[in-house]
């Protein structure tokens, strides 16, 4: 064992850091600091910069336009993006859909869609969950019925993140209802401009708007938009789900968030002294930092031991602990701001509403982000489902 870092990795880190420092749009830092709502263009600005550099798709093989990095380099790259507080790149197309297209799509699909994903020309959303099918995804029902050269799709998808921005949606649809529920699912690419699609926004409890219901009424999808074989979509989706769970521990982002939390606790007062000197509170921050340190080395062990791209059950463990740490940071941030957790920037706009921020500027997202972070143990496979996976696949229970 040896925790020193290879010189080429050190140099690589410096290169990435310099690039971000030089090219990351500073207006985005301001926007994020003020917790302003981010637009599609905000995401795309940074996407295009990374694309131009050839770094937008770290996990893609070189032949499709990836940089050809090692897993350690990819890890470093993500760490640096997080440490810089950079806006996230869209996972749905880059890390979820693309691997499926590469492995199961046909030549025509790969040639058409992959470059458009790279350039940011197409924005993709993920249409898996349905009102009746969440954890039990395989029970999904939305039918796609063959009619000539089209499938006709009817039904609804829900919780669809950023459907409001999307040009395309990749869906799991039901093409056969006989036999095992995992059989009879197909993987379909649907143009969001097709007549019959409506998007209904869902406000979340923190006042934000990321998720939607997407309704399909007699939506005609050309059969050439089927990926792989009809009725085999579940196999492809499962491969993709394990990609989704990767990178979710988000250690570097949590490190940045804890640093910011410490700063808040140094500014905020308690009985005249900085809150950070309050023994109860400082103990809680320390405990959290220790948890994060353990998680960091858990992740490092997984990344550096990686034989293939598949992190296996470690993915579930990283997601479980990563989301819990994120939520704990949110809890302590809300505790740190005391009564200034009350003012609600995204509340009703009325004739005599004050201009935000009401308290110090760091206080205004303490409340909303605490509430929003509850999603991290629900999406991408809930904590209960993740524990089930570990119980089965690691412990053989």
């Amino acid at each position, binding site marked *: 064992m040896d925790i020193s870092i290879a010189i080429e990795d050190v140099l690589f880190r410096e290169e990435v850091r310099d690039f971000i420092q030089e090219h990351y749009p500073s207006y985005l830092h301001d926007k994020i600091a003020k917790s302003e709502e981010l637009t599609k263009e905000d995401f795309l600005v940074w996407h295009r910069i990374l694309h131009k550099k050839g770094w937008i798709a770290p996990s893609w093989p070189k032949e499709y336009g990836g940089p050809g990095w090692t897993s350690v380099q990819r890890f470093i790259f993500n760490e640096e993006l997080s440490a810089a507080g950079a806006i996230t790149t869209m996972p749905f197309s880059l890390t979820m859909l693309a691997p499926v297209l590469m492995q199961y799509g046909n030549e025509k699909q790969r040639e058409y869609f992959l470059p458009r994903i790279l350039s940011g020309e197409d924005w993709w959303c993920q249409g898996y969950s349905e009102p009746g099918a969440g954890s039990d995804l395989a*029970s999904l029902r939305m039918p796609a019925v063959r009619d000539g050269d089209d499938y006709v799709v009817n039904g609804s998808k829900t919780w669809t993140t950023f459907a409001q921005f999307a040009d395309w949606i990749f869906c799991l649809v039901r093409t056969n209802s006989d036999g095992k529920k995992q059989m009879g699912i197909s993987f379909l690419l649907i143009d969001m401009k097709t007549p019959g699609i409506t998007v209904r926004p*869902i406000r979340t409890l923190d006042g934000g708007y990321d998720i939607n219901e997407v309704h399909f009424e007699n939506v005609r999808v050309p059969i050439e938009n089927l990926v792989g074989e009809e009725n085999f979509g579940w196999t492809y989706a499962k491969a993709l789900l394990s990609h989704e769970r990767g990178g979710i521990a988000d250690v570097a982002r949590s490190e940045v968030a804890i640093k910011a939390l410490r700063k808040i606790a140094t500014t*905020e007062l308690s009985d005249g002294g900085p809150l950070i000197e309050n023994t109860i509170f400082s103990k809680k921050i320390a405990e959290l930092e220790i948890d994060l340190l353990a998680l960091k080395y858990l992740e490092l062990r997984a990344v550096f031991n990686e034989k293939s791209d598949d992190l296996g059950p470690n993915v579930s463990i990283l997601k479980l602990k990563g989301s819990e740490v994120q939520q704990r940071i949110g809890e302590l941030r809300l505790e740190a701001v005391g009564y200034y957790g009350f003012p609600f920037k995204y509340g009703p706009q009325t004739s005599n509403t004050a201009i935000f921020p009401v308290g110090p500027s760091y206080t205004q997202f303490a409340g909303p982000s605490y509430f929003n972070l509850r999603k991290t143990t*629900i999406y991408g496979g809930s904590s209960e489902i993740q524990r089930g996976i570990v119980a089965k696949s690691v412990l053989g229970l």
Partner: protein
Amino acid sequence: MDFSFSEEQELYRATVSRFIQNQYGLEARQKIVNSDLGMSRENWQQFADLGLLAIPFAEEYGGLEGSAVDTMVVMEEFGRGLVIEPYFETVIFSGGILSIGGSNEQKQQYIPRIISGECIFATAFAESQSRYNLADIKTTAKVRNGGFILNGKKSVVWAGPWADYLIVTARTSGSQFDEKGVSLFLVDKNSEGISLKNYPTIDGGRASEISFENVELSDESLLGHIDDGFDLLEAAVDRARAAICAEAVGAMKALHETTLDYVKLREQFGVPIGNFQVIQHRMVDMLIAYEEAVSITYMATLHLDHPVEERQKSVSAAKAKIGQSARYIGQEAVQIHGGMGMTDELNVGHYFKRLTMIDVSLGNQDYHVRRFADLTQ
């Protein structure tokens, strides 16, 4: 010992519960929350007509001489209904200060107008640096001929936008953290020199940042004795804490019931999710947290008139425990609802937000565990 409720208390419960069932569904509530005013004057008048605003006050001012258990019952039901209207701020908190510390004339002047629904009160005690320390006060009231001059700023004053009158804590002597030298004033919100910044709060209410600039107060505006307002403040705050615990209990009950219904209804993998043992155990742990919360809230409410230290200890025990169970039940209810729990469209998220802010209000878990420990030594 007897933990049963009187006929009268059952009547209060039934009255409020009927009001909520008939008029305060989530949709109606959210309409009020999103309205320009942010509360309903009609509901407030209805509370007056039902006698709810009169419960804790003395008969000679038109009150019903109700006990803390009476208002506890009302607060529980308001918690179940996520009621926005400022019963807590006006009747319990400010009303409590008036009842305990007001002079006969002050009571005569203001209590009947609270009871009739004419006046809304808010208590302005927190400052941006004070956190939960009630004596950490920079706002000053300087004595001048026949009165005082008030200067300073108060933070996050609940119901501030709706209030006609404010009860303000200010320093008449001593230095920033001294209990001695704290005085309480009853201030007309329209007085010259007062300015407000109003805003919505994350739990559906409204609050204000209030600044006082050379506000002239008469001698009659002093509540209780000069420099000796702290004990009065603390006594009223402890009563307010017990009441807000009761509100939390009501909200937790509703949230547990809603979640229990959901796990019986929601099916995944071909069975109701309530069939999974993981979910069953969580529902049981939530129930236990709720039962503990009820018990400790009753305990605190029944100790409000005991000797000061007992009162303080009981209230801190309850508020600490409530903070913990409110967080636990709120988070679990959201988790068990999955994606549905994250939406603004179900009541689950709204209960969770109110419960979270109750933990923050009038001292969070850390504050009350510390206070309990200090009092126990």
